[in-house]
C-alpha cells in the first residue's frame, strides 16, 4: 500500500506541538511505516508538494505565516492544525491586547537589557499583521487538535483516525487547553 503523504509546518509558535508529536514514543514506528513526511521541520524540506494531509502548528502572525498557510492549504487534501495557537490564537494572540507598534517598541527598544535598540525594517523581514489569527481565519481547516501543547496521546489519536479514513474530533476526555 502506498504511504500516506504528510507535510507539516510551523508558523508563529514554540514548536512544542511537534515535540509532543515526537513524544509518541514507539508508536512512531507504526506511523513511519504508513506515512511519508515530505516538507516538514522534521525532514527540513521547505518546499510544499501535493500531499494527503497537511499539518500546521502555530498562529498566523505575519505575512509570511499567511503565505505558508495558504500554500499548505493549496497542497493538501485534509488540513489538520495542532495546538492552541493554531486552533484559537493561543499565547501568540496575547499581543492582540496591544497595538503592533507598542509590541515592537517594547520588544526592540524598551526591554531592560536593550541598549540603543532599533526596530528592524527590511523587505526581507515579513511584516507583522495587525492581529494574530487562528489558522481557520485564514484558510479552511478540516480538523483541530488543541492543547498547549496537545498531549502526544491526542496527536496520536488524531493521526490514527486520519490513517483509518476518519476526520478526527477529539473526545471530551482527551481535550486539553493547557
Amino acid at each position: 500500500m502506498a504511504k500516506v503523504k504528510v507535510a507539516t509546518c510551523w508558523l508563529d509558535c514554540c514548536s512544542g506541538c511537534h515535540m509532543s508529536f515526537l513524544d509518541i514514543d514507539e508508536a512512531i514506528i507504526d506511523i513511519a511505516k504508513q506515512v511519508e513526511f515530505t516538507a516538514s521541520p522534521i525532514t527540513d524540506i521547505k518546499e510544499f508538494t501535493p500531499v494527503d494531509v497537511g499539518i500546521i502548528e502555530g498562529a498566523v502572525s505575519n505575512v509570511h505565516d499567511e503565505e505558508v498557510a495558504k500554500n499548505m492549504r493549496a497542497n493538501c487534501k485534509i488540513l489538520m492544525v495542532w495546538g492552541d495557537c493554531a486552533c484559537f490564537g493561543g499565547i501568540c494572540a496575547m499581543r492582540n491586547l496591544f497595538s503592533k507598534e507598542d509590541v515592537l517598541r517594547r520588544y526592540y527598544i524598551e526591554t531592560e537589557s536593550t541598549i540603543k535598540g532599533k526596530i528592524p525594517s527590511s523587505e526581507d523581514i515579513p511584516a507583522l499583521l495587525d492581529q494574530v489569527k487562528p489558522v481557520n481565519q485564514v484558510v479552511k481547516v478540516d480538523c483541530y487538535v488543541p492543547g498547549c501543547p496537545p498531549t502526544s496521546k491526542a496527536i496520536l489519536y488524531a493521526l490514527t483516525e486520519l490513517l483509518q479514513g476518519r476526520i478526527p474530533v477529539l473526545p471530551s476526555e482527551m481535550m486539553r487547553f493547557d
Partner: protein
Amino acid sequence: MKEITLTIDGKSLSGKEGDTVLEICQANGIDVPTLCHLDGLSDVGACRMCVVEIERERRPIPACTYPARDGLVVKTSTETLEKYRRLMLELIFTEHNHFCMFCEQSGDCELQRLAYRYQMDNVRLPYTFPSLPVDSISDYLVMDHNRCVLCGRCVRVCSEVVANHTLDFGRRGWKTIISADLEQPLGESSCISCGACMQACPTGAIFGKLSAYKGKESECQATRTVCPSCSIGCELEVFTRDNNLVKIQGAKFTELRGQLCQEGRFKLLAENRPRIITPLVRDGQGDLTEHTLSQTLDIVAENVRRRKGNFAGLVSAKCPNESISYFCKFMHEVIGSNWVDTLDGESYRVISTGIENFKDGARGLDIECSLEETLEADCILVVGTDLVETHPVAGSFIRKAAQGGAKLVVVDSVRNAFAPWADLWLKPERGMEGALIKGLATTISKGGTETLAATTGVGPEELQQIVAIYGKAQRAVIVYGNGILEHKDTSVITAILNLAASVGSYVGDKLRVISLKPRANSRGAWETGAASKQRFSLAGMKGVYVLLGDDVMEDEKQLSELKGVDFLVVQTSYYSPLTSMAHVVIPSPIWAEREGTYVSLDGRRQQAQRVLSAKKGLKSDEEILRELSFKLGRKLS
C-alpha cells in the same frame, strides 16, 4: 406547596409549584449544563448554557429561570440545543481574553470543563480582544477581568449571602465589567475579603494569591473541619497537598452558616510566625537551648516537685474540649493544683456573673439564643463590637436581617466599620456603653431622656429614636462583644439581659441575647469548667504551666504577671513574647494538626478533623501531658 407533574426527556417527573425546570432536572439526575447557576443563589439566566426546549415556546429557554408548571413537555438534550450551547461557549470565549495555559484555575475551571464537554476545538467567530484591567491590590484576591464571563455569581454571593454589596455590574452592554463599589480596586473598596466571590467564580477571574498555582483540586485532599479563628464555628473545607495547606473554602458557602471570613479563608494560610519544633530549656546564660522531650520533661517534673501545689495552669480556649479537659485533669490530679483558668477566663467571669445576677440566670449561657435568631429579628442592637473586625460572619447574619427589614442599631464609642450599615449609631462617651444600656430600660418604661443624655453623651434625639425602635420591637436581639466585656462590669451584662427581658424578648425559654465569646472554643472551655470562677493573680505563683497551642497571649496584664513567675512552662506552636519569658518551651500542634470537639458561641458542638499529620516527632498535647504525669509518678488515662 402544590405537586406538579411534567414530562422531561420523555419521563414523567414531579416537582413542587415554584420549582424551576432546572431544579426538577437536577433533583431527578438529568444533567443540564450550567455556568451562571450556583446552588444556594438566585438564578438570573445570564449564561444560557441551560437552555431547554419547551413545547409551545417559540425558542429555547433557560431552565434555571423557567418556573415549572403542570403538564410542561421539556427536552433538555437535542441536536439544536447542543448546537446552541456550543455556540454560546464560542461567544463567551471570544468576548473576553481566555488563555488557559497559564491560568491558575486551569483544571478546576467550569468554563474550561464545558468547552471540553462540548468539544470546542475551534472558534468560528472573530475574537474581540478587549483591553481589560487586572486588579491585584487586595492582600488576598486578584480580580482578572480578562477571564470574567459576567455570570454574576460573585455579585450574587456578595449581596445574597455575605450581604455586603461590594460587587456589582459596572458600565453597560458589551463593555460591562464586575465592579467593586464604583470601580474601586478591591483592596480599597468596601470589600471585607471574605473570599466568597473567589469561591463562587467559575473561572480564574477571581483567585486567591495565597493558593495560586499550589495545586488543582484534583491533586489535593479535601478535609472538612471547624474554623479555629473566632467563636462562630464555621465549617472549613481545607485542601492539602503533600501535607501542606493549599486553600481553604467554606464547606457550604452559599448558606449563611457555611460562609467564611478573611480569618478563616486567608489568614490561616498566611500564618508566618516562626514555628517551634523542638523542646527548649533556658540555660544559665538565659538562652533557650534545644533538648530532647524526655530531658525537658525531666526538668519540668523536677521543678514541679520542688514547687508542690503552688502551681497554676492556664489553657487557651482555641484548644478542643478534649485537650482542655485533659489539661485540667493534669493540673488537678497530677500537679495537685486548683489554680486553673483559661486565657479568656476574665470574659467568662464577667458574662457568667452577669447572667447569675439576672432573675433567671441559673441556666447560665443556655439562656442565650442562637445566631439564627437574628434572622427572625425585627430589631438588632449591636453593642461594643466591630463585627467586621471580630466576627464577620455574624456581621453577615445581621446585615441580612437588616436588609430584610430589621432595624439595626450600633452602640459603640469608637470607630466601627460595621456602623455604616446601621439605621442608628449611638456613640456614647468612652466607657459609657454600660451606663447607656442600664439607662435604656428605665427610659423605655418611664420615659425621659435628658438625664441619660447628660450622663452618656448621646443626643436626646438619638435616645428618643432608640426608645422608639427598641421599645416597639417584638423580636429584638442584643449582640454584645469585647467593648462591653473589657470594662469587666458584670452589672452591665445583667442590664443587657434585663433590657431584653423588659420588652419580653424571649424565644422559648431563651432570651434574645448573644455574647460574642473571644475564642473558637471559649464556650466549650467554660462549660467544661476550665475557666476559674474566681480571679487569681498569677504573679504570686511559684510556677505556671501555660497550654497555649497556636494561640497568642495578648493580655498585657497576664503577660506582666507572668513575667515575675519563678518557673514558667509554655506549651505552644510558635515563638511569641510569652516564649521569650518562659523557662521551658514545649512544642504543641497547630489547629490543622488537632482534632476534637469545639463548642460555638451559641452552643453548637462540632467535631474538628485533623487536616495535616503532625510534623515528625511532634506529640499531641495529651501525649506530652501523659508523659509528664508518668515522670511525676502518676498515671493519667
